[in-house]
């Protein structure tokens, strides 16, 4: 009963459409003729998750079964994606925990007792115990965490990094020492978008700044078109070179999983339905939600949304050698998210919701909001962007949710110091990156607290480099004007005002496309 993605043209019968904006949403009347791209409905899920996991470990692609790769006395390391995936957090039990349990069962049967489990968080923040427990499950957490065999990767722990050499392009490959010196490295992925997984898992997830800086820079990121298409992404080419070098030193057994589109569980599931199909009850639910949100204080709205857990279902799992596994994964992700779109438009409209990969249980500051819209959504295309070169992006987000100094301390300084100086990603890197990346206080907070690495805001900004390069103007509806200006953007109160402002760039009757995110969709623009 699933339906593919859908492109609707707004006419006089089209009801107002839902647009997310931070900790809330609005119902927007789009001009007639606006194209609306809806993500496809959820694919069928695997009937028996435990069985599917077992099956994938027994019958991997281009590899012996996992069981055959294990032997007594070996060093086994299991790495897994951190809390940046999936979004929102999955209802317990998390798929990663279920897979890790089975891997551990096989290891136990084979007499492997030197096992360590590491969260591959790269330069993201350390997870709290509760967050870690949610992902790996209570049993694994209790068995491994107290003895220090379950931990967050520390990209700044010099003693526990291994430099494996340089790629043919001179890129340093430096990853977690335990992982690098294991007899077998099992990596457990959640592939929410096509960008995740492949050689990105080990090559970036377990790497250090020294290694990551080779592809996380403005130049590489401008040349990644798109991030969702690893064959046209410079960032991925670099990660692939690194991954192959890693493969020469350590045996990697990759496990990749794909999920359906059930991002909102009850009572928010109405938000996933297409507006013109809303029943009276759906309409009442949405109106009630809107009214509730309108009167709820910020703190309560934050809690309402951040406590939300998704009903994700597993659409597939593949294990084995990194590259063939990833090919199959990407196919499944595309199947779930791809929507055929005919041609580009002058204006692209995107609602930016409350959550992105880098503000789980935290706030979405203006930089993260920009990254979510202009990094993630803008780049969710195959072939060419939804909006034409020189076109305008209109985004919805209040841009005022503040900076959480526990999780994002370097963001405040980046916002006040770097963005006050320049917005140009290409200038920012050489001038400021090194200072932020090596700042001992940020390093300290990354290692001992729950802070993103000092360099992280730079990556967010590089990530929007392609959009900045491509677009003629960026306008935020409902965005705090000061924050918008600091980032080099403009703000408008209403869509009408935004279109009025855009008219100097794209004329008074532009073609408009609204990307109805979330859940994720991948626009295949021909």
């Amino acid at each position, binding site marked *: 009963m699933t339906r593919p993605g859908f492109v609707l043209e707004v006419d006089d019968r089209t009801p107002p459409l839902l647009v997310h904006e931070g900790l809330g949403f609005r119902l927007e009347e789009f001009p007639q003729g606006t194209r609306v791209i809806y993500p496809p409905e959820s694919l069928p899920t695997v009937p028996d998750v435990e069985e599917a996991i077992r099956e994938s470990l027994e019958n991997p692609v281009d590899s012996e079964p996992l069981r055959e790769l294990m032997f007594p006395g070996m060093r086994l390391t299991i790495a897994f994606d951190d809390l940046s995936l999936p979004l929102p957090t999955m209802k317990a039990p998390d798929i990663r925990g279920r897979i890790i349990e089975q891997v551990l069962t096989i290891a136990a049967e084979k007499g492997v007792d030197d096992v360590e489990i590491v969260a591959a968080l790269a330069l993201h923040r350390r997870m709290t115990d509760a967050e870690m427990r949610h992902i790996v499950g209570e049993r694994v957490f209790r068995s491994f965490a107290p003895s220090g065999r379950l931990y967050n990767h520390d990209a700044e722990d010099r003693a526990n990094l291994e430099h494996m050499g340089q790629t043919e392009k001179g890129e340093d490959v430096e990853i977690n020492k335990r992982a690098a010196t294991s007899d077998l490295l099992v990596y457990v992925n959640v592939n929410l978008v096509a960008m995740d997984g492949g050689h990105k898992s080990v090559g970036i997830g377990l790497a250090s700044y020294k290694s990551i800086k080779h592809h996380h820079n403005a130049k590489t990121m401008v040349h990644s078109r798109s991030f969702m298409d690893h064959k046209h992404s410079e960032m991925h080419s670099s990660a692939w070179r690194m991954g192959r070098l890693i493969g020469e030193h350590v045996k990697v057994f990759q496990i990749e999983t794909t999920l359906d589109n059930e991002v909102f569980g009850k009572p928010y599931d109405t938000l996933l339905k297409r507006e013109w199909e809303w029943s009276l009850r759906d309409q009442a639910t949405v109106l009630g939600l809107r009214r509730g949100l309108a009167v709820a204080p910020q703190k309560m709205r934050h809690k309402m949304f951040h406590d939300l857990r998704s009903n994700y279902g597993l659409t597939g799992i593949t294990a084995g050698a990194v590259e063939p596994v990833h090919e199959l994964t990407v196919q499944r992700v595309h199947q779930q998210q791809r929507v055929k779109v005919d041609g580009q438009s002058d204006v692209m409209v995107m609602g930016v919701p409350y959550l992105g990969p880098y503000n789980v249980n935290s706030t979405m500051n203006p930089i993260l909001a920009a990254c979510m819209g202009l990094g993630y959504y803008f780049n969710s295309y195959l072939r060419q962007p939804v909006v034409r070169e020189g076109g305008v992006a209109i985004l919805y987000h209040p841009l005022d949710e503040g900076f959480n100094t526990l999780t994002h301390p370097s963001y*405040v*300084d980046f916002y*006040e*110091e770097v963005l006050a100086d320049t917005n140009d990603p290409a200038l920012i890197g050489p001038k400021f990156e090194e*200072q*932020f990346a090596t*700042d*001992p*206080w940020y390093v*300290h907070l990354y290692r001992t607290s729950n802070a993103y690495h000092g360099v992280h805001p730079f990556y967010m900004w590089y990530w929007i480099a392609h959009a900045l390069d491509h677009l003629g103007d960026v306008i935020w509806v409902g965005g705090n004007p000061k924050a918008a200006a600091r980032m080099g953007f403009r703000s408008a109160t209403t869509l009408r005002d935004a279109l009025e402002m855009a008219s100097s760039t794209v004329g008074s009757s532009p073609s408009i496309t609204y990307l109805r995110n979330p859940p994720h969709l991948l626009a295949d623009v021909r």
Partner: protein
Amino acid sequence: MLALEMYRSVAKTALGKVAGGRMPLLLTGAAAPLRMVTLEAPRIEHDGWARLRVSLSGICGSDLGMLSGRTSLYFQPLVSLPFVPGHEIVGELIDPCGDLEAGTRVVIDPVLTCAARGLEACEACARGETNRCSRITVGDISSGLQTGFCHDTGGGWSQQLSVHRSQLHVVPEGYSDEQALLAEPVACAVHTARRAAVRPGDRVLVSGAGAVGLLATLALRELTDAGEIVVVAKHAHQRELALQFGATEVVAPSETLRRIRRATSAFMIEPEMMAAPYLLGGVDVTVDAVGSKESLQTCLHATRAGGRVVLSGMPASADLSAAWFRELEVVGTYASSRGSGDFATALDLVGHDAMCRLAKTVAPYPLHRWREALDHAHSAGRLGTVKVAFDPRQTN
């Protein structure tokens, strides 16, 4: 002659606790400790004294502090009520004074030292450290640390006062009255720069971008080999000025500690219970050019261990834990010292481009509009003015 007279101590009656965006009504209203009066022009019948006709007389932060009662009771015995305020003065000699002819245009160093009081030089005065004179309450004239706080001499907020030869500096040819007016505050800034003992390449933080902060920034830039000079400014136009006066970088008060932390790779410590955060690490030298509790705290908390905190302007009370634990050198800087030639240096600096531009923005008021003038001076930062002054030659 017409004069403004401070006739009772606000500090004593403790009326000065009124705050607000504008000058508290109390101080410009009926209960103000200041009044406009007609006085006998002051004459001091001792050697070296002469009468001076005032051209311009500035309003200084210390004047506002005194008038609003924010000034510590500490200073109360060092003034003699009633007095005519005003110690930033440019004027013309009415009488000849020593080697100077009548009509000479002069600025005054307001400090009333042993020389002016007809006393044998005290140890400080003998060393040329005139601003450290310990005889400021005795001698030929009534107590008063400076002209502008002394009953007998009169002060600048009037048409005339008495000045001593030891206080006088001839205004060089070509300077406007407005430029000359700035010589006294610049001399204080020169002294501040010396007291800051900046070593080559030192990182300096100047907290405040009012007149004191801006002039200190200029003096630090011109007279020392300071490396970065970060200036804390509240208002947009102050940012511009600070950069013109030699700041490397200008930051807002709320971001100061974070910016210094970043620039110096310091660690930031955040105590519980709303206490102010502080740095382990920080700049080499800080100058408090505001005198508020917040500003002084920022200075103490942003200075590296063993660094120096310079109190320029009258300081508020603050938690001195950092001074103890971080072994800070907390030094005061008061007025300027004659032995070091601060005034001569200041008169040179007054010719600087940035100073010439600043001189053009001096806002003069006639004496009878003193309420407006004080109100303007109180809000100067917000309104974009650096120096407000009285021009007793104006009558309407």
